[in-house]
C-alpha cells in the first residue's frame, strides 16, 4: 500500500495511510502513516462501531497536518476491543489545517 501512497504523493496530492503492519511500513517509507496493532481486515475497527471508525479517521486526518518529517509513523493509542470511544477527544478545526 505504501508504494501506491508514494506515487500519489509524488503526483502532488498529500496522503495519509493507515497501517496495521508496522514492519512493512517502515521498509516502504510512505510520507505519513498512522499505525494500529489491530487484526488483518480491521483497519478502522469493528463492524457497527461508528464511534471507533470515526476516531480512527479523525486521528488519521489529524496526523496528516501534524506530521512534518517525511516517513513519520504515528502509533495510535487505541487498543483492540479495550477502548471506550465516548471519552475520545477529537481534533479541532484548527488541528486540521
Amino acid at each position: 500500500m505504501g508504494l501506491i501512497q508514494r506515487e500519489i504523493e509524488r503526483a502532488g496530492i498529500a496522503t495519509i495511510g493507515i497501517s496495521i503492519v508496522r514492519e512493512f511500513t517502515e521498509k516502504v517509507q510512505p510520507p505519513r502513516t498512522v499505525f494500529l496493532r489491530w487484526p488483518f481486515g480491521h483497519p478502522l475497527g469493528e463492524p457497527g462501531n461508528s464511534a471507533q471508525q470515526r476516531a480512527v479517521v479523525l486521528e488519521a486526518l489529524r496526523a496528516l497536518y501534524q506530521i512534518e518529517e517525511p516517513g513519520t509513523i504515528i502509533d495510535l493509542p487505541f487498543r483492540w476491543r479495550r477502548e471506550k470511544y465516548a471519552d475520545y477527544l477529537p481534533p479541532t478545526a484548527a488541528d486540521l489545517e
Partner: protein
Amino acid sequence: MDVTRFKNRTLARLATRFPRLAQRFIDGYQAQESAGSIPWAVPKPLRQAKLALVTTSGIHHQRQAPFDMNDSDGDPSYRTLNGEELFDDFQITHDYYDHTDARKDPNIIFPLGPLRELVSEGLLGRLAQTHYAFMGHIDGRHIPTLVEKTAREVAAKLKADQVDLVLLTPA
C-alpha cells in the same frame, strides 16, 4: 476453488483470529524497501479540500471482474469505485484476510460513512465520488507494474479529478 486458494483463505481466517500467526506471516514476507527521498506534498486545509479513498482491501463492485487470486504474486490492477453506489453492490476479492466483518460493515475497510459525517459537519470540504481499490498482496514481478504503471495511472486520475487529499486503507 483450488487447493492453494483454499489454503490461503484458511490461513487468512486463522491469522485474523490469532495475531501470533499473523506475525509469522509478516516475518516471512519481504516487503519492498524504498530508496531515495520520500515524496512530499503540503496538504490543503481539510475544510477546503476534496478527499478520495484508495484501498488495498480488494473491495469492488459486483459488476466488475474480480482480482486474479490464482497468481501467487498477486494482481497489480485496480478497480474504479463509485462511492455513491459501492455499498449497495460490493464484493471483496482478496484471499489473504478474513472478510467476515468487512462484509457486515465495509466502513471498517473503506470509511465512507465517517467521511460523509465530516462533510456534513463542515470539517471536510468535499468527498470525491470516484475512489480506487487494489488487492494488496502484490509481490515479485508485479511490483514494477504496480509502481510504474497502475499506481501512477491512479495518481494521474486523482489529480485530473482535482483531488487534494487521499486516505489509504489496507486490510
